[in-house]
């Protein structure tokens, strides 16, 4: 019997008292023999245990956990009434392993049986996700964690465990999987150690791997060697400051297929905060086709640029002929004069030397003209170099001079002597300027002779950039032409191709500059071209 005693200090202690009656030989009662034991601690512990079990059960309930125990020796499963109801077991029904297993989804039953057998053999903790079918026929996903306890002989006594309904999570996962699979981009999920957690079928297609070959592998196997070595550092940086962004902004990225071949990619990175660390979701887009298209577009643009240069050359044919004929006239006159001096027998050697020097100079001059023409009509990639815009302007003024004379037009330059050099393709910029100047000439067909003037100005625009403008005194830009002014094949001229200003814009754009047009007070139009002092690469 157990009862409480009041100790001298007033504290109550639980006593377990047991006694056995003693009888003498005559079978007379001789009193009790027994012992008293202070079991206060034990009682307290039991109570604590009971309370903790209640609390556990409450907590489990609140968390939607199902706690169960399987007495293996008696093949008896204990489950709370509430949980029995969940699975459709009656409160008094005797539950054994088979009965409990009957709620497992038919397709998963074999798997669960193996799992349990395995756990009994290896004595390891059991952990699995599978489906159960509820009385109403609904399928729910559960996760099961259990531990088997063994006696001293290594025989299994019981398994205790919890089940948790993870249907929502599974559905979310399935949605994620479906979304991932449906994505037109390749999707790779990488954990914070750089190992691949998940890939979609696009990745299989892009890289030529089966997903089983990828999951668990370091993500670096998808990169060419030259990128793979630095990648762990980049990964560490990303994990340290995880924000959604494009990978390797400004750099060209390449991916490596299973067969070792490479292809250009664009990769978007998204951090996903998961319980066990940061996962990185990488969206991989194969941009081979886009790169090809870009190359094709560039080629087309160059082709168009070339055509328009040829067209400009056509317009400038008179000018070029003139430019060549001048030195040729000089050469022939001088050479003929030399022959005559010699024939007459009174050669002044000093004079002859001057004469020959002039011939050489004129020859060079003709050569320069030809080179200029060749460079204008030459096909090929643009070449950047340091360009002094003022020199370029003076060159163009010289080139178009015969055209200016032909149009009875004055040319004026207002050049900033302190202009910094810029990185540019001189041929292309020359073309820009020639196109603008030729347009200016054309715009002044109906301007009185005394007012025909083209003004080319250069200046620094304060923020380190350079501004170049071409102003005419012509008809100005008609309102209806304003919007389409820089479009290819748009023209207001009777015989125009509509390429001049389009080319101007694409060239200026490729130099990271801008071009704008305005009508000026006092008549005519002005075209402004702004270029950064050091135009960035294409």
């Amino acid at each position: 019997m157990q009862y409480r005693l009041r100790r001298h200090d007033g504290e109550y202690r639980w006593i377990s008292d047991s006694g056995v009656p003693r009888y003498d030989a005559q079978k007379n009662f001789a009193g009790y023999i027994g012992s008293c034991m202070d079991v206060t601690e034990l009682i307290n512990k039991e109570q604590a245990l009971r309370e903790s079990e209640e609390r556990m059960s409450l907590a489990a309930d609140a968390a939607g956990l199902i706690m169960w125990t399987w007495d293996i020796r008696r093949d008896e499963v204990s489950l709370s009434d509430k949980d029995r109801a969940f699975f459709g077991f009656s409160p008094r029904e005797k539950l054994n392993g088979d009965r409990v297993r009957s709620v497992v989804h038919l397709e998963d039953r074999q798997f669960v049986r193996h799992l349990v057998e395995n756990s009994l053999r290896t004595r390891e903790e059991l952990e699995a996700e599978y489906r159960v079918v509820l009385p109403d026929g609904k399928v729910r996903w559960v996760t099961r964690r259990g531990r088997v306890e063994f006696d001293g002989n290594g025989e299994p006594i019981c398994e205790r465990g919890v089940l948790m309904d993870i249907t929502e999570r599974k559905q979310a996962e399935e949605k994620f999987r479906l979304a991932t699979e449906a994505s037109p981009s390749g999707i790779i999920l990488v954990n914070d150690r750089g190992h691949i957690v998940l890939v979609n079928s696009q990745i299989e297609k892009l890289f030529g791997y089966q997903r089983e070959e990828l999951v668990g592998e370091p993500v670096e196997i998808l990169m060419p060697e030259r990128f793979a070595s630095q990648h762990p550092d980049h990964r560490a940086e990303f994990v340290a400051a995880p924000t959604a962004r494009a990978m390797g902004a400004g750099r060209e990225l390449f991916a490596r297929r299973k067969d070792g071949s490479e292809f250009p990619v664009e990769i978007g990175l998204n951090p996903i905060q998961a319980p066990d660390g940061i996962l990185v979701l990488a969206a991989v887009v194969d941009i081979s086709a886009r790169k090809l298209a870009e190359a094709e577009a560039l080629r087309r643009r160059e082709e168009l640029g070339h055509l328009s240069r040829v067209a400009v050359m056509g317009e400038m044919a008179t000018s070029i002929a003139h430019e060549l004929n001048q030195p040729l006239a000089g050469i022939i006159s001088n050479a003929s004069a030399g022959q005559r001096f010699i024939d007459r027998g009174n050669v002044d050697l000093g004079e002859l030397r001057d004469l020959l020097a002039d011939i050489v100079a004129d020859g060079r001059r003709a050569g320069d003209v030809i080179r200029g023409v060749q460079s204008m009509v030459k096909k090929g990639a643009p070449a950047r170099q340091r360009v002094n815009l003022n020199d370029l302007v003076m060159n163009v003024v010289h080139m178009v001079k015969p055209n200016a004379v032909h149009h009875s037009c004055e040319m004026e330059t207002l050049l900033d002597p302190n202009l910094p050099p810029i990185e540019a393709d001189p041929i292309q910029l020359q073309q820009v300027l020639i196109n603008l100047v030729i347009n200016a000439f054309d715009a002044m067909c109906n301007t009185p002779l005394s007012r025909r003037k083209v003004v080319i100005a250069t200046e620094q625009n304060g923020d380190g950039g350079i501004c170049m403008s071409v102003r005419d005194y012509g008809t100005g830009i008609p309102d209806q032409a304003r919007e389409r002014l820089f479009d290819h094949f748009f023209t207001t001229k009777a015989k125009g191709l509509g390429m001049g200003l389009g080319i101007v814009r694409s060239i200026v754009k490729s130099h990271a500059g801008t071009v704008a047009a305005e009508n000026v007070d006092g008549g005519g139009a002005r075209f402004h071209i702004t270029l950064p002092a050091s135009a960035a690469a294409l």
Partner: protein
Amino acid sequence: MRIPPKSLVFAIDDDASVRKGLARLLRSAGYKSEIFESASDFLARPPHGGPSCVIVDVQMPGINGMDLQETLIQHRREEQLVFITGHGDIPMCAQAMKAGAVDFLRKPFRDDELLQSVQNALIRSADQRRRSAEKNEARRLVDLLTSREFEVMQLVITGMLNKQIAGELGTAEKTVKVHRGRVMQKLRVTSVAELVGLVQRACVAPVRKQ
């Protein structure tokens, strides 16, 4: 090729190479020349008093070749023009030739081609100068006649006899004979044929028909 005496060739071109080449070529062929960078520079120079040829570029800033031709015509100048051009503009060529240019050459021109044109121009210029000098001389002599003598002269060159002239003018045949003698003396001619030639050079209308 004989160069007319006192000839002078002017070359106007805005291109220094062409100017220098022309100057040498002309000198090598024995011509005296002066070169100018622009037409206005040339016009600022007093006209040359001898056969002159002007080689001028069609396309020049300011006054171009065509403008110069017009200016020279307006001022009745006697310089003969040879145009040179780097363009070979056909309509301009036609216009220049119609207005009396000696030649219209495309650059680069052949030396003999140019020199031939220059020579032609100088000869034409010399002829014109001579004709013009003769005309001036004839007019000077004609101006010496009194109005009565002039009337008699006008009738003499139509081939009328003294008697007929006297009838025409209502005067005595003797008087006509005196006037006729003075005319021949003043105009320094000895025959009616010579008289007719001189009057033609002076561009005097032969008759005033009744």
